[in-house]
């Protein structure tokens, strides 16, 4: 699935962003990536969807190694990943359904197959009635649902979410989080970066905590009776 093995990442100007990152997200798993701002969460996700290449070690996703993966292979890999962001990244001049359909149109999906798929995922995220609304006509939570629908429409095996609730109020945050759990319940793995500790504490999902570009805690590695670790500590 997603396997980081001794990964280090250095950026040209800012230097070392990650070092000695090793973890494995399994099929169908739900894992949080937490840590203060600048700790390297987004960088790990970028490595996972191969927007960035590791400076050291290797990242393997669904059997594809980041070392020597061609741009074409990466494009093909991304069709099996769903990716969502804090800022939704919707096209403002297109309706909700057109935004979702876009992901299919640009990946050689037969035209006849597009409409049914779009309607299915919009229903899945609870937006069937707002299919023709434009992003500016939708609340933040609804916009994120459109983005999630777009991420789901190619039936990904994992949903990669970078602070998906970062721009949302409490109510919307809970709604989106529940949606991600529902999606996970259907068998799709979820790897979600967040610094919202309330959210993390509310569940018993796996937690990988970062600080200064290193993993300081991984609940999958910790002994079963260990305290909840630095989660209660001084993040942020």
């Amino acid at each position, binding site marked *: 699935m997603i396997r980081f093995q001794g990964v280090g990442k250095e950026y040209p100007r800012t230097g070392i962003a990650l070092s000695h990152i090793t973890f494995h997200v399994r099929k169908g798993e739900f894992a949080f990536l937490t840590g203060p701002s600048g700790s390297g969460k987004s960088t790990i996700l970028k490595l996972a*969807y191969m927007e960035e290449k590791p400076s050291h070690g290797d990242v393997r996703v669904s059997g594809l190694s980041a070392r020597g993966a061609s*741009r*074409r292979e990466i*494009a*093909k*890999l*991304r*069709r*099996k*990943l769903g*990716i969502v962001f804090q800022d939704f*990244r919707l*096209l403002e001049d297109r309706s909700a359904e057109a935004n979702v359909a*876009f*992901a299919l*149109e*640009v*990946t*050689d999906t037969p035209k006849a197959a597009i409409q049914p798929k779009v309607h299915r995922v919009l229903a899945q995220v609870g937006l069937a009635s707002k299919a023709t609304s434009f992003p500016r006509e939708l609340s933040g939570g609804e916009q994120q649902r459109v983005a999630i629908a*777009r991420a789901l429409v*190619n039936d990904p095996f994992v949903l990669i979410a970078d602070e998906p609730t970062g721009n949302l109020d409490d109510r919307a945050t809970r709604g989106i989080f529940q949606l991600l759990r529902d999606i996970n319940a259907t068998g799709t793995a979820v790897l979600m970066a967040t610094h919202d500790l309330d959210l993390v504490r509310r569940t018993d999902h796996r937690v990988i905590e970062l600080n200064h570009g290193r993993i300081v805690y991984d609940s999958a590695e910790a002994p079963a009776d260990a305290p909840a670790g630095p989660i209660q500590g001084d993040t942020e």
Partner: protein
Amino acid sequence: MRLATREALTGFRKSPLLSVLGIVTIAFSLFAFGLFALVALNIRSALRTVEERVEIRAFVADGTSPEAIATAMGDIGSFPEVLRVTYVSPEEALVRAKRELREFSDVFESGFLPGSMDIRLRPGFRDPTTVKAVAERASTYEFVDDVRYGQEWVEKLYRLRTLATFAGLALGAAFALVAVIIIGATIRTAVLARSREIAIMRLVGATDGFVRMPFLIDGFVKGVLGGLLALAMTWFASETISRHMIRTEFFDARIAALGVLAGALIGLLGSLFSVGRHLKEV
């Protein structure tokens, strides 16, 4: 493909001024080339007419015996390049000179008109080199004073044609380069204007080829439009010259299509150079 075409058209909407400029530059590039090509083409057909009329005149010394002339004519007539040889007597020469005194005016003015053997060459043997070779052989007869043929004229035309071809190529290439740069700039603008869409396309797994396609179509369409515009401009120029100066010949359909294709190629090159570079930035 339909999607790509639709996307390509947004290039025109997003930056109409630069788009038009790109098309016009391509048009000028091909127009410059087309004009000189037209000159070369018309010189070539002029050459063909001149070649058809090419005649070698071997002037015979006064008092040469008719037998010697007949023998020489028999010899020359048997050259494989020669179509026929006719003898023009001094009297006939005078009549003819009055008709076309321009080309042989100096001979005419000398007050004496010599007889001549007029040699006509077979089609395909009328180029300057063959003409010269036959003329030289004709001049080996002792009684032949002088051999004349439209040498200078033919060679001048040949040189002019070469010059027109090179001038057209050079000017056309310069414009083509500018066109490639301008098309590149329009593509850059289009890429930046659509960087958000491109980023999302990438994210959901569109291939580079797919992302590139609308921009290539954009460049291709601009190139074809530029080519058609150039064709219209060249045709208009040719018509104007035909009407007010000399009758000119226009390109045949194959050459015209080739010109439009060249436009498409320039447009495609412009977007290819630009799109690869700028897609990496977004």
